[in-house]
């Protein structure tokens, strides 16, 4: 029986529109058949969004589906189903939750599992993955899923960027990385053309890419408004407002959403309205996906006067101008340059600070820009891609920057079995005390 919690309050009215967005994405996968569109089981932050949008392929976001199940505290039945066929509970729970759902649907001859959140998600016509640098499930989840959806073709793109090495100038390697990414994207287009039976409209792709660039710029401009003191929006909302950028990139709806958010934040700033009143501590959510079943923890922070004006998580974009992208008429090459430069544009700063790393350099930049007093990390046990190396980031941050208060929370993204609200709140309380002592010392 699902233990559905009451909806979490959000600080901005615009963020309150997000559930509609998520429902819309799920229902689009269900309506696709009637509209004669193909559905692709796809991954966020995989560089394939614009190709799908330009070809009218409807993305079925597995992470979103599993996140919704987690938020509704209704993932357990799917996790158990996957476990029944020997998928370990230590594997990515985004993946095992979704695979469990698909297993049940296949066993039911294609009928939607009863109680699937928000009507469930459509059966894919294809599965797109990306063997990129940051996440093994992005190519293993598609392969594992095909074990149950045997007729559904899988295509794995591979988009890399130069790895961080303080002794190597990554700029010297950029060109062959971009060439490789571009070729891989071209292979992706060929696959999509084969499955959809339609040719890519390259002018349309170019327009979609241009819209994505505009959305990236607007997103950063909008989030920069959170530098205001008190901050008008914190990470609790950002875990919602990331949806259009992350799941709807390349659509007008996503762009328009940030126009609205931008306007609301400006109004709040003009009125001096902050997330916490009074705002006592400003924190950075420095790494880690949230526990989707425990987003209320952000409000617990807020209740103590602590706000998160900035987060690394789901801020998957940068001002295009800052990336200094070489000009090209090939939209795929543009996506490739944007990809490579996005992942590497903190390298030069890291190279200048002995002992630093790009991830830490990014955190330092945000701490300075958003005037943060401390950092919070979340380590999810089932996800190595975003959560391995967090101890190191915290350690390097202290060594190369300063000894600011740091909290590393532990939990999971989907699996609620590891979560204890009382323990979590106790840890937050202790961290708040540390912050208070730190701020006291800073004033002296």
């Amino acid at each position, binding site marked *: 029986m699902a233990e559905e919690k009451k909806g979490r309050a959000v600080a901005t009215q615009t963020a309150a529109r997000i559930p509609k967005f998520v429902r819309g994405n799920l229902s689009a996968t269900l309506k696709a058949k009637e509209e004669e569109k193909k559905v692709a089981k796809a991954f966020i932050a995989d560089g394939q969004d614009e190709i799908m949008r330009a070809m009218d392929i409807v993305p079925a976001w597995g992470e979103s589906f599993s996140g919704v199940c987690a938020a509704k505290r209704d993932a357990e039945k799917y996790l158990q189903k996957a476990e029944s*066929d*020997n*998928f*370990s509970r*230590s*594997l*990515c729970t985004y*993946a095992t939750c979704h695979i469990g759902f698909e297993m049940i649907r296949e066993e039911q001859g294609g009928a939607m599992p009863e109680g699937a959140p928000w009507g469930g998600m459509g059966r894919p016509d294809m599965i797109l*993955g990306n*063997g990129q*640098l*940051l*996440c*093994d*499930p992005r*190519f*293993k*989840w*598609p*392969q*594992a899923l*095909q*074990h149950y959806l045997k*007729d559904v073709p*899988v295509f*794995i*793109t*591979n988009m*890399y960027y*130069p*790895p*961080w*090495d303080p*002794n*190597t100038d990554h700029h010297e*390697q950029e060109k*062959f*990385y971009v060439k*490789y990414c571009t*070729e*891989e994207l071209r*292979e992706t287009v060929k696959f999509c053309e084969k499955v959809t039976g339609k040719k890519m409209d390259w002018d349309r792709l170019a327009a979609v890419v241009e819209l994505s660039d505009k959305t990236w710029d607007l997103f950063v401009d909008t989030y920069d408004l959170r530098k205001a003191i008190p901050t008008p929006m914190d990470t609790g909302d950002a875990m919602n407002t990331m949806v259009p950028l992350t799941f709807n990139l390349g659509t007008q709806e996503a762009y328009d959403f940030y126009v609205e958010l931008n306007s609301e934040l400006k109004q709040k700033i003009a009125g001096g309205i902050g997330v916490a009143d009074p705002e006592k501590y400003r924190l950075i959510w420095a790494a880690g996906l949230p526990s989707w079943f425990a987003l209320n923890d952000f409000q617990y922070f807020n209740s103590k006067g602590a706000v998160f004006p900035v987060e690394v998580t789901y801020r998957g974009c940068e001002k295009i101008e800052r990336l200094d992208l070489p000009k090209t008429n090939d939209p795929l090459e543009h996506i490739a340059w944007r990809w490579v430069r996005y992942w590497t544009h903190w390298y030069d700063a890291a190279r200048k600070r002995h*002992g630093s*790393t790009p*991830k830490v350099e990014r955190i330092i930049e945000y701490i300075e820009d958003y005037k943060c007093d401390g950092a919070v990390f979340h*380590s*999810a*046990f*089932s*996800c*190595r*891609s975003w*959560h*391995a*190396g*967090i*101890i*190191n*980031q915290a350690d*390097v941050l202290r060594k190369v920057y300063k000894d600011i208060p740091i909290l590393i929370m532990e939990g999971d993204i989907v699996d609620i079995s590891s979560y204890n609200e009382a323990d979590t709140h106790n840890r937050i309380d202790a961290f708040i005390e540390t912050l208070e002592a730190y701020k006291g010392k800073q004033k002296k």
Partner: protein
Amino acid sequence: MTGLANSKGLETAEKYYAQYGARAIELKKEGRKVIGYMSALAPVEILTAAGVVPVRLKGFVDEAITKGDAYMESIICPFVRNAFDAAIKGRFSFMDGMVLPHQCDSIDRTNDVWSSYLNLPYWHFLNVPHVTDDPSIEFMKEILRVFIGTLEKFLGTKITDAAIAQAIKAHNENRRLMRGLYDLRKSNPPLISGVEMMKVLVAAMSIPVDESSALIRGITEDVKKRTAPADGNRKRIMIIGDQIDHTAIPESIENTGAWLVADDLSIGGKIYWPEVDETADPLQGIAERYLRKLKIPTTFVGDGNTYEENLEARFGHLKQRIAEFKVDGAILFIYKYCDPYGFEVPAMKSYIESGGTPVLYLEDEYSTSTLARVKTRIEAFLEMIA
């Protein structure tokens, strides 16, 4: 193995197994550089051509992680954590540098951890792709060139194509010799036990290829002289997994009354079957072997027209080995927190079972602290297939 003759080669293997890195330490004293590496994806041909001593890092299964946890999360592959713990405690202090190939998240996402805390004079992360199409082969050649460039800079010497071609021949010969030793496990009973074989495989990871070939040649000659008495109706087991580099599991199998006759491990069957083609550009052959011939779950294989074709491409070699070595049962031993292997389990298990071979799937730690439960599961499995 009762009734079987002893071997000087096996004594040497036993020494290198028990004193891991002992030969590298000797060679370092003679002025050779030692480069450590992780995983089956490190192109050892290039290290050999560079004239360094390549040593594959291993864990120490009977040692608790006492220092590594301060730097590396417990959600990371227990083997990687154990090997890192050993490194941070100085077990590989003879290394002048390391190459860390991009195999999986547990390696990729801890690159900063390894490099910053070991602080070795040479460090290289080799960005091996996960897919195998033509652009990936070209990309692999590019990253191999970058790797060669950094090694040349560190060593102050040129690594020529001729040297790489020679190293390819040496490693191919080494692989043929090792497969020749594996062949001696095909008889019933096998002429060399799974425990002995494990020691040979581990020893071979820590010495230069020519010495490894000489060692294997010697052992093979000695083992061939053995007379294997008939030994009842012991079941013949194959083990599948990544880096199992200790005798605890083979002992658990063989002390329970079975023979470990074959493996598909990343220090064994996975690396000794595929060879490097001797191509005009030696990097072409190396790129093709590491991307297209090595059967490891971090390389995506899925270009078939049907799912069944994909399964054959991914696991067909397992069925061949099961047939060649007359395997009665397979043990799939996967480390906890391992996404690449973990997501393979249902497909691999059902594929092997579809050929009539029973499979025991074990997910466990890299530690002898959990060995009792592993033994119990193995005993139950052997009883079931008896």
